[in-house]
């Protein structure tokens, strides 16, 4: 694995980790195992930090380090992950994402206006770190052990780092320094030119009593908290002239526990006192010191127990083998941990191309099959059939490649709900069902905007203010639900809320005022509900920055219709609203059912075909204008496709009814001939025919003829309208069972 590949892995991995972090944060209140959630969030940040370190992205390391420190405190139980902290961490997650996005070559190039954001976030994080109180050392130790347990990061650093972003310099001068003509003070002055001495402690413990003291010997030592962008070697060079004659230890920012233990061990001094000096320098916090002393004891008792990380840290720089090994281990650890399915990232364009080719292949193979039937050569028919079967399988798996679970799209709304509801001062829960329902990727991409709009609508208009909710005896926390499921060849996506529902009176008033509906028109509840999808319709008194401008819902409807889908709305005033989007599973190839009227071919999606029955004399009551039959006690309205498409002279001896079910509605199409199952590659209609009601597309048959793909939803609605409300109500009634 070379560095470039590794870098790409880092980018992809960061995105995933951040997404995971966001999900965990958002789901934190409801999760079964909060400790594991915190661990998982910590790991995400920690892994990003580790990987960023390998690529020398110091800015990311510095920022993630602070986040990580706070999370470490949470993990060790110093404070709980409460609402404000979750919000803060979400902002940090966004910021890290931004940093990763703005990696340019080897550095992070943040826009200048982002820097105050970072500073503000860091301040907020530090506030957590500084108000901490020391916890029992035992839990802290468990935290550290945890860090050792997961292999994925142990290669890079196995012991926890300190939250200090400054260098720490510990220098003890030898007795002869002064006699050799050197003045330690001048080194300190020189050091100050390289950066900022944040805090310095003069250690005078070695100074003997006045009688024993040799005025020409040096007894002083310094512990320095030093803020600088200088490199380690630059800092070392400051003390170049006394290198032989002093004890010098320079710890980089975010040094490891083990390094501090080493300092404390090396310097013959009262351990506790030196620890306190480090605390005073601001290098360590009190709690870090407590941990450290515990660790030190553990190390002593454990004899030769050394931390792997130390070796790497002591080497200073990880060599490229280590990088590879680290990434490898990371990958392994992840696999074991998250049972992540092995995936290959493929360019979406390549996939689209493949699907197109397979579409052509399906058409070509249909052509071959019909030719072989005509030729009548048995062996040829057999091979053609084998090929058709294989093509079918290839098509199936190719389409599956594009199937994506809708869960990811749904999860994005967690954040939206959280942010928007906070903005509006409402308390809203998002419930997600059917996250594993699969849907064509292209459909998912196009549905995400309309969904966003609906969810925002639910939050803004749907869920009432807390005061109104309590007045209506509802729980204070509003509930928005996203649900997805498959139903007869379509996927249904529901956005529901337990909010105020639609006020039909108000809608009707407004619609009459706007001239959308004539004053005397009587509208059913369903029709009134549908009014909100009309352009320019809004009943909101106030236009907020979230919604209320009345441009939303008709855009939603048009977007969904462009996907050959439908949208309907169920609502009860003061109880809640459910908006149901029905979409075809895929946009490319469907299993169709072919029918023939006269010499024209029609195709409907196979999944919506309920049954086929013969239209016999008993049924033929439609000629006197009533186009419905009694289907085992149900009213089944039907439409003669030949009549609808104005075909003449299709007087077949026998007619068949194809019973179609779309959502809750059923209708029959009367055709001359049933052709059976047919793999249909959907070809879009030209712009001229796009708006023809009843047709959603076309397809090319093996023979080269064109078949029209029927738009079942618009045809069914047509039937309903034609037959009036009585039947539609009856049909709905019967469909309810």
């Amino acid at each position, binding site marked *: 694995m070379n560095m470039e590949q590794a870098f790409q892995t880092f980018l992809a991995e960061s995105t995933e980790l951040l997404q995971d972090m966001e999900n965990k944060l958002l789901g934190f209140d409801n999760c079964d195992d909060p400790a594991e959630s915190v661990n998982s969030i910590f790991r995400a940040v920690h892994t990003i930090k580790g990987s960023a370190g390998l690529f020398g992205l110091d800015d990311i390391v510095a920022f993630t380090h602070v986040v990580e420190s706070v999370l470490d405190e949470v993990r060790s139980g110093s404070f709980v992950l409460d609402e404000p902290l979750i919000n803060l961490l979400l902002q940090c997650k966004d910021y890290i994402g931004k940093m990763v996005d703005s990696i340019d070559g080897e550095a992070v190039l943040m826009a200048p206006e982002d820097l105050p954001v970072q500073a503000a976030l860091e301040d907020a994080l530090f506030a957590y770190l500084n108000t901490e109180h020391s916890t029992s050392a035992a839990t802290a130790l468990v935290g550290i052990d945890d860090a050792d347990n997961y292999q994925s990061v142990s290669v890079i650093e196995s012991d926890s780092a300190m939250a200090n972003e400054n260098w720490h310099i510990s220098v003890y001068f030898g007795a002869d320094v002064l006699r050799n003509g050197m003045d330690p003070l001048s080194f300190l002055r020189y050091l100050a030119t390289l950066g900022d001495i944040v805090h310095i402690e003069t250690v005078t413990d070695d100074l003997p009593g006045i009688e024993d003291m040799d005025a020409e010997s040096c007894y*002083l030592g310094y512990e320095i908290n030093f803020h600088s962008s200088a490199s380690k070697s630059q800092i070392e060079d400051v003390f170049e002239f006394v290198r032989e004659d002093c004890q010098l230890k320079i710890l980089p920012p975010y040094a490891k526990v083990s390094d501090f233990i080493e300092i404390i061990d090396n310097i013959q001094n009262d351990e506790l006192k030196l620890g306190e000096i480090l605390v005073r320098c601001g290098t360590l916090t009190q709690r870090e010191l407590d941990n450290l002393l515990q660790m030190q004891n553990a190390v002593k008792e454990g004899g030769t127990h050394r931390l792997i990380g130390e070796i790497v840290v002591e080497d200073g720089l990880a060599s490229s083998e280590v990088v590879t090994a680290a990434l490898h281990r990371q990958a392994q650890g992840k696999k074991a941990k998250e049972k992540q399915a092995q995936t290959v990232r493929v360019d979406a364009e390549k996939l689209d191309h493949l699907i197109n080719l397979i579409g052509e292949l399906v058409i070509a193979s249909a052509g071959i099959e019909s030719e072989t039937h005509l030729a009548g050569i048995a062996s040829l028919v057999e091979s053609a059939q084998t090929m058709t079967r294989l093509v079918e399988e290839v098509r199936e798996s190719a389409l599956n490649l594009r199937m994506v679970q809708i869960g990811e799209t749904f999860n994005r709304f967690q954040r939206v709900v959280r942010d928007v509801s906070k903005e509006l001062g409402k308390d809203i829960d998002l419930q997600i069902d059917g996250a594993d329902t699969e849907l064509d990727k292209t459909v998912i991409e196009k549905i995400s905007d309309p969904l966003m709009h609906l969810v925002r609508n639910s939050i803004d208009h749907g869920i009432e203010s807390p005061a109104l909710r309590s007045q209506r005896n509802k729980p204070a926390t509003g509930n928005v639900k996203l649900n997805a499921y498959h139903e007869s060849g379509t996927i249904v996506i529901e956005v529901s809320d337990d909010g105020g529902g639609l006020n039909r009176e108000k809608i009707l008033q407004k619609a009459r005022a706007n001239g959308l509906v004539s004053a005397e028109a009587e509208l059913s509840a369903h029709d009134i509900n549908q009014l909100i999808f009309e352009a320019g319709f809004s009943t909101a008194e106030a236009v907020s920055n979230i919604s209320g401008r009345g441009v939303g819902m008709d855009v939603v409807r048009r977007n969904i219709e462009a996907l050959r889908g439908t949208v309907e709305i169920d609502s009860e005033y003061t109880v809640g609203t459910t908006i149901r989007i029905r979409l075809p599973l895929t946009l490319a190839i469907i299993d169709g059912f072919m029918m023939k009227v006269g010499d024209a071919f029609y195709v409907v999606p196979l999944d919506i075909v309920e049954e086929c029955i013969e239209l016999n004399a008993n049924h033929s009551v439609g000629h006197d204008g009533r186009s419905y039959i009694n289907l085992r006690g149900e009213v089944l309205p039907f439409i003669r496709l030949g009549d609808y498409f104005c075909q003449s002279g299709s007087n077949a001896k026998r007619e068949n009814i194809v019973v179609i079910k779309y959502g809750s509605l059923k209708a029959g199409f009367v055709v001359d001939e049933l052709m059976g199952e047919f793999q249909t590659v959907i070809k879009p209609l030209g712009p001229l025919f796009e708006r023809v009601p009843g047709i959603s597309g076309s397809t090319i048959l093996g023979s080269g003829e064109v078949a029209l793909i029927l738009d079942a939803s618009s045809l069914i609605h047509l039937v309903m309208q034609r037959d009036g409300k009585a039947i539609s109500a009856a049909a709905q009634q019967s469909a309810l069972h």
Partner: protein
Amino acid sequence: MNRSKDNASLMFCPQGDLTIYTAQQHKEQLLLAMNNQAPVQINLAEVTDIDTAGLQLLILAKRESLRRNIALNITGHTRVVIDVIELCNLSGFFGDPVFIPSDTSDKGTSA
């Protein structure tokens, strides 16, 4: 600035450089002054230069005074002395009131 509250207090007034070159002889004077169990006053007004060795002497004096429970006043800090004490963050340790000379060239590093 001269708090002559006690006439019996012993004065130690190093002059010129308080550095490695003169440290040994200053130390002997200091030892003499400290050995009397009487309050000691160190006036640094005449100090033109101070280095680590000189600083060590002041630290020594302060520590010794604490150990023997003798009052110790260090006065007359000159700019060079203040700079060194601030550089080493020892003003708290000495705890003497420091008169800041008017030429505030502001060379003191952060404490």
